[in-house]
């Protein structure tokens, strides 16, 4: 459970850091008035969806950390036989990283375009593209589509990995090591699929001439989620390979010894 406690410590200290900016030392019984307490304590200045995502990331992170912790505890028992992982996982990793990078550049593009859009009109403001080149979403859209394609390719790659591992004779219940392999990658895949649903929807939105500022938050949320899932994927592979993975140990030895 050590890993869990470390993760928890990170979450707790982040929350405490935030709380410490909420004037917890105030004496609310002495101060009345609309804003007398407000100074210095601002509401989180992020969109709701982003805060929601951060909460989800904490929960998902907890979920995976608990699995990692269980993995560590279970691998201490002597029936554990480390299964080898096929090398296609490295390709999968690159695909997911690629998707992550595309999303990040989509975010940068969308933000830049949104900042070029001016809001005109008094009563009912209408965003108008100052560059006046028609569809705002032209340059964001291909980036999003690329991210979708790479992510789907990643999922296909993961399925191929499953086939290869099974082809080597390691089934779900052959050994705890293979059990964890299928369960962890499966769980990760489910999270990717959930994210893809949102990403597809966002991509579809860019087809029509939707207002850019609506896209920005969505792309932002997707990008953050993808980075997070890529990070989890790396940790997951690291945990599953264990310290037993020879090339890795060799690499370490070459670097550190």
């Amino acid at each position, binding site marked *: 459970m050590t890993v869990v406690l470390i993760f928890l410590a990170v979450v707790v200290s982040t929350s405490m850091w935030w709380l410490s900016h*909420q004037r917890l030392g105030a004496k609310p019984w002495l101060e009345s008035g*609309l804003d007398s*307490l407000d100074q210095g304590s601002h509401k*989180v200045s992020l969109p*709701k969806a982003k805060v929601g995502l951060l909460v989800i990331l904490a929960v998902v992170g*907890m979920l995976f950390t608990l699995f990692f912790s269980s993995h560590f505890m279970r691998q201490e028992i002597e029936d554990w036989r480390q299964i080898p992982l096929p090398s296609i996982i490295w390709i999968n990793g690159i695909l997911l990283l690629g998707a992550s990078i595309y999303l990040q550049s989509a975010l940068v593009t969308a933000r830049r375009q949104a900042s070029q859009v001016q809001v005109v009109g008094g009563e009912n403001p209408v965003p108008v593209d100052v560059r006046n080149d028609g569809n705002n979403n032209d340059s964001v859209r291909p980036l999003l589509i690329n991210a979708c394609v790479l992510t789907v390719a990643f999922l296909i790659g993961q399925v191929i990995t499953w086939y290869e591992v099974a082809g080597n004779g390691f089934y779900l*219940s052959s050994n705890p090591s293979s*059990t964890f392999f299928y369960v962890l990658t499966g769980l990760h895949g489910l999270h990717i699929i959930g994210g893809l649903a949102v990403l597809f929807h966002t991509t579809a939105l860019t087809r029509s001439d939707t207002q850019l500022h609506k896209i920005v938050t969505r792309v932002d949320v997707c990008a953050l989620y993808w980075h997070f899932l890529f990070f989890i994927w790396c940790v997951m592979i690291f945990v599953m390979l264990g310290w037993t993975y020879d090339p890795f140990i060799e690499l370490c030895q070459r670097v550190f010894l």
Partner: protein
Amino acid sequence: MAEIENDSLPILPPAELEEVELYHATNFWTKYVFSQDAKIIAIQYSGVAIAVGLVALVLSSLIRLQLGFPEMFDFITPETYYQFVTMHGMIMVVYLLTALFLGGFGNYLIPLMIGARDMAFPYVNMLSFWIYFLAVLVLVASFFVPGGPTGAGWTLYPPQAILSGTPGGQGLGIILMLLSLALFIIGFTMGGLNYVVTVLQMRTRGMTMMRLPLTVWGIFTATVLALLAFPALLVATVMMLFDRLLETSFFMPSLVEFGDHLSYGGGSPILFQHLFWFFGHPEVYIVALPAFGIVSDLISTHARKNIFGYRMMVWAIVGIGALSFIVWAHHMYVSGMHPYFGFFFATTTLIIAVPTALKVYNWILTLWNGNIHLTTPMLFSLGFIVTFLNGGLTGLFLGNVIVDIPLSDTMFVVAHFHMVMGVAPILVIFGAIYHWYPKVAGRMLDERLGQIHFWVTFVGSYLIFFPMHYIGLVGVPRRYPELGDAAFIPDSVATLNSFISLAAFTVGIAQILFLYNLFRSLRKGQPSGHNPWRATTLEWQTAQTPPGHGNFGPELPLVYRWPYDYSVPGASEDFLAQNDPAQIAKGGSA
């Protein structure tokens, strides 16, 4: 004493919040059934939780039938007894208390108390309820499958939970239980996301964190705990489902059952215990923190006094929340852990008693010299303090390794946890219902019936659980349908057991009075007006009672003060609502 004068307040525009797109129901289905209005969802959550809680109450009577009058009822076999105990425990803890405090009170009170029109993600909120409902259906379905529900104990320890010797272990019982829990957790996470984001992002202007009513602090912190603790239960249920259905060996060691060598091998039952209690202990506080918060507000309102030490109360809630994650192994003292581990967890357990005791002192100091109105909510709050104190004291015993080892798995433990997380939170729930019912229904609950309900429930609970401590001390084990002729068990135990059972039936029947009151007052109750308790918090200041769609009128309320301005010297009334801009020079006190 510092005198602080406030400058004259400018008239400010309403809260500068993100514009909320309020969802508008168009027909009966979207308005009352698939509603996205947090108030309706709250009522749905509460209704389902109370209904399934009644099932658990009936189960407890069946348990008591067997314990009080063993060998009298043929339909209670050891197997059915285990099933009753298991389902009773699980329903009470998860499907009643957690769902009612967070899904019920959380949904109703959070938006109203912080001055928001609704939750942050109303659609997700609706999904949350329906998934919870599905979880309850799956749970209830397990009563009707061949082999019946699981009898593994609410802790579901492997390996016995999925072996053929345990009722439901090889049938559908345990599978449905695990599925239902998984659904519950997914549904809860959706709701919890809403509660957290709503508190963080949707407070109205002037409502700083340090002006939140303690109810909101309690529910908020409990939700954070639940969001971080329930994944552990999810991981455990998923792994156990794999072990049961796909013959993996996460938890299952190699076993011989009736001469057959099972295909399992190497799994670790202790791993399950870690996961389960990593959820299980915070669960105690998931139930307790909302109760702490609510009781603080009830006491303050009904004693017409500000809460003593608001700041300390907030810190204590947050501190207890954080600490509750590092005490879980005090449930595992008898699992053969390293003695230093036991030492560590005993220490953390005792440390957590400090902020908890602090809260009790503050409640008492709030009551001190207060203008105590012995209304039903106040009675239930007082009952809570006494009961919680009682359970907390036996908790100090059980937290110490050497004391716990002989007491482990005896009726003493059962008595302890019923006091601290059974009776105490339930008393708060009753108090809270008597307090907020007028807001929800626009009518008061009948006060006389309420008083009778309180006294029977409170005294009855003591008659049930107080003698149980003694039964445990003489060594009677828990989860035993019958005691037989053990030499160490004196005859008085049997007499006491029958007595306890009679008390339990009385308490059970008294709840009918409560239900009757609940339904009768819908029509016949005295109209309550907007603010019958003359309370300060925002939910009492709505334009309509029950609050309409969007909670507040065209403008969101502005918050000028903390929620505990009762009996402020110099004020024209004995309370100042949070949105009351009046300026009163106040003296400082800690």
